[in-house]
């Protein structure tokens, strides 16, 4: 860990907030991707069977 001096709180807060936002974005993208893919597969199956 480098010595951050008197700006430690700011730097860490900035990195922390960025990390949270990026993680949220990636998670949302991922989750929706999976959800939609499932729903589509189901719908196709239903159409072909029913």
């Amino acid at each position, binding site marked *: 860990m*480098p010595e951050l001096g008197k700006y430690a709180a*700011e730097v860490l807060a900035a*990195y922390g907030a*960025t990390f949270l936002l990026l993680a949220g974005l990636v998670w949302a*993208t991922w989750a929706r991707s999976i959800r939609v893919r499932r729903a589509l597969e189901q719908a196709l199956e239903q159409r072909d069977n029913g």
Partner: protein
Amino acid sequence: MSIWKYANPLKFMGWTGPIVVPMAVLATVCILTGIIWGFFFTPDDYRMGSSVKIIYIHVPSAMMAINAWAMMLVASLIWLVRRHHVSALAAKAAAPIGVVMTLIALITGAIWGQPMWGTWWAWDPRLTSFLILLLFYIGYMAMWQAIENPDTAADLTSVLCLVGSVFAILSRYAVNFWNQGLHQGASLSLDAEENVADVFWFPLVLTIVGFVLLFIALVLIRTRTEIRARRLFSLNARERMNDA
């Protein structure tokens, strides 16, 4: 055959499938190396102290916030002129990424402003125009949300994006006129005098490249999702049609 054939939804799904994962991996590698390099292996700035480390996330996100809108503008134009569905959906997919980038730039900037300027927020032109950009993003996304029919939504949001871009540029000038501001000038320019020191420059360029790659990877994934959702919509609608 022109390059437009790659915009056919089926073709698009085909050629993007294999490149999504490598792209995401490459993005992660670039960002991580850049950040670790910058965070652990660069010295403090003589004036800003260790707070200079914020630059490695602030500048790339600020650039991507603007670039994402630019990409949406181009995609909207393509949709309006050539009516390639993938293009409209790519614009839709890019908006949430742009919002997050804008938010990161605003938040890191605000946090940085506290030690540097002694305030969280000042009505500096650069900051202000980012706030306006955020508003445009929110309006654009709200518009997609509010309209049920996907083609109507694509048309209307594209028109909004065009007009919005013109007004966003206008606001940028208006805001400059209004207040001269505290914010840094362009320091990535080739003009050596304003340039940041080389030690900061290399990791910064690396994170910027990483953010660009991340943006591309996310846009691809989200566009693929939107294509599937669009198809699902058609199937469901057809289904309801057949029931009736």
